[in-house]
């Protein structure tokens, strides 16, 4: 479960953490990805795990378009840019939820059978559900890929430079909008992967994103803004804390543990565990 939280958070770590743009619609990105995966299954009988790359590609385009059409303008605000971003993306989230309700109805949907759904694998005598295992593997791969991408490629350097000083970056011929649109696309594609995998074992409904979004913010902040590795570590910690809390407290209180750990961490380290900002 921790690695799944990590997978949802990794896209946010890129948008929120590395580009320093508040995105309150992250949960709704997840929701859209889950619906995409559901409809690919319902109409074309494509297994969610096979359609994951398709969903990710579609979400890449979606993320880039959202940036170019909306977020780009929110970032242009000179005064109280933070609030403008918060409320623009919050409005966007409500809009997306409304659209989902309109087109997909508020009904709960689920993917009844898929190649991996319901199967379990025995690892050293412990039975683990297969979809979660695949999610974990994809999560690790995604983090590794993103880490490599940010730290070893020109694009990663351009991204960080653009966040630091958009003016100077423009002088050396980097188009800020292209870099950030690509970054948003990538962030959305990653959450698309998460959505496709989660569609296998979670109910899909218009408000589904909200329940995961807050945990994703906490995961990113816990690990520290600006750190990919931090988000990965944050995801694992969140998963472990949740599992431990569920043993001690009633299940309805399991998130309290996560929130308490976040508060504890930032009181001791105000920049998160591995944060640079």
């Amino acid at each position, binding site marked *: 479960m921790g690695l799944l939280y990590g997978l949802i958070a990794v896209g946010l770590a890129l948008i*929120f953490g590395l580009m320093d743009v*508040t995105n309150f619609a992250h949960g709704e990105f997840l929701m859209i990805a889950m619906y995409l995966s559901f409809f690919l299954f319902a109409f074309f009988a494509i297994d969610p795990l096979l359609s994951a790359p398709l969903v990710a590609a579609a979400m890449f385009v979606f993320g880039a378009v959202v940036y170019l059409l*909306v977020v780009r*303008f*929110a970032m242009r*605000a*000179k*005064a*109280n*840019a*933070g*609030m*403008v971003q*918060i*409320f*623009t993306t*919050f*409005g*966007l*989230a*409500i*809009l*997306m*939820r*409304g*659209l*989902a*309700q*309109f087109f997909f*109805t*508020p009904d709960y949907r689920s993917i009844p059978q898929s190649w991996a759904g319901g199967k379990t694998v025995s690892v050293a005598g412990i039975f683990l559900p297969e979809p979660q295992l695949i999610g974990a593997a994809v999560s690790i791969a995604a983090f590794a890929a993103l880490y490599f991408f940010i730290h070893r490629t020109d694009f990663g350097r351009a991204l960080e430079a653009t966040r630091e000083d958009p003016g100077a970056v423009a002088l050396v011929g980097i188009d800020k909008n292209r870099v950030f649109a690509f970054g948003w696309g990538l962030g959305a594609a990653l959450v698309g992967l998460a959505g496709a995998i989660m569609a296998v074992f979670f109910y899909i409904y*218009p408000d589904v994103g909200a329940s995961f979004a*807050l945990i994703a*913010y*906490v995961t990113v*902040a816990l690990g520290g*803004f600006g750190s990919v590795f931090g988000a990965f570590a944050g995801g694992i910690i969140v998963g472990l804390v949740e599992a431990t809390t569920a043993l001690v407290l*009633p299940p*309805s*209180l399991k*998130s*309290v543990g996560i*929130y*308490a750990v*976040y*508060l504890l961490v*930032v*009181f001791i380290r*105000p*920049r*998160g565990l591995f944060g640079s*900002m």
Partner: protein
Amino acid sequence: MDKTFAARRRRDLIIAAALAGLAALAPLFIKDVYVQNILILTLMYAALSQSWNILSGYCGQISLGHALYFGIGAYTTELLFTKFGVLPWFGMLAGGVIAAVIAMGLGYPFFRLRGHYFVIATIVIAEIGLLLFQNWEWAGAAMGITVPVRGDSWLKFQFMRSKLPYFYFALALCSLAWFVTWWLEDSKWGFWWRAVKDNPDAAESLGVVVFNSKMGAAAVSAFLVAIGGAFYAQFLAYIDPESVMGFQFSLLMALPAVLGGIGTLWGPVLGAAILIPMTELTRSYIGGSGRGVDLIVYGALIVAISLALPQGLVSLFSRSKAKGATR
């Protein structure tokens, strides 16, 4: 400079008094209960947003967890009322004081955090409060509390036959929140807060005790929001954790100030006056379909206003004024 500032403040006060007077007369002409309901909610959100604005607008500490204080105000009042028979008026004050004390207690560790870390901490603490109340059997858990009917009276702050007393209380609360903001704007605190917002390090070096001024803002803000919570609970006669402490509520409190103009005297009132009727009308006229059309319209409008007027609707007025001044 000083003279124009004083003149502007006097003008603001006169306008506010005139508006409050006009609003007080409104029920003479508006008899429709539905419209009265919208007016009451508008005034309440204006008051809440004005209070939120003190901490987040003037002092610059963006809180998205003010639903916590709202919920504390609502729950303190109703628990005292239903379990111990304490009159809502005392419960309201108790709720305000408890909220202010909690705000300061939380401020102690929270105000060391900056930026996103602070915002997320405020969201998270309100969410913890929500979960605890949802699981607190004695306080009604997720089912909430239904306020028993004890008859129409100002003493018990309960009115079944008419909504007008609620209207006048909401108007009084809104005026109070506005007046407190107006008064603080020109006080030592007001100047400290703006200094803390603009540049905390510079403010500290000039002798502003940054920590204390944040604490003061948090306490005033939480107190007023909790009073609003107590009012809301009496007005609806029913509360449950999700509807008074949910994250949506924190955002709804901030939204009028942001749309109207964050950190300005008139922003919250203006924002609420436009946003709340709009929300209610879209909900009742196109929300009936159950297909979320109201959400689509509402979301799109928020996006449009925040993009078109990043400094809020108030900037429309000051812009035209600035033009007039240069001429």
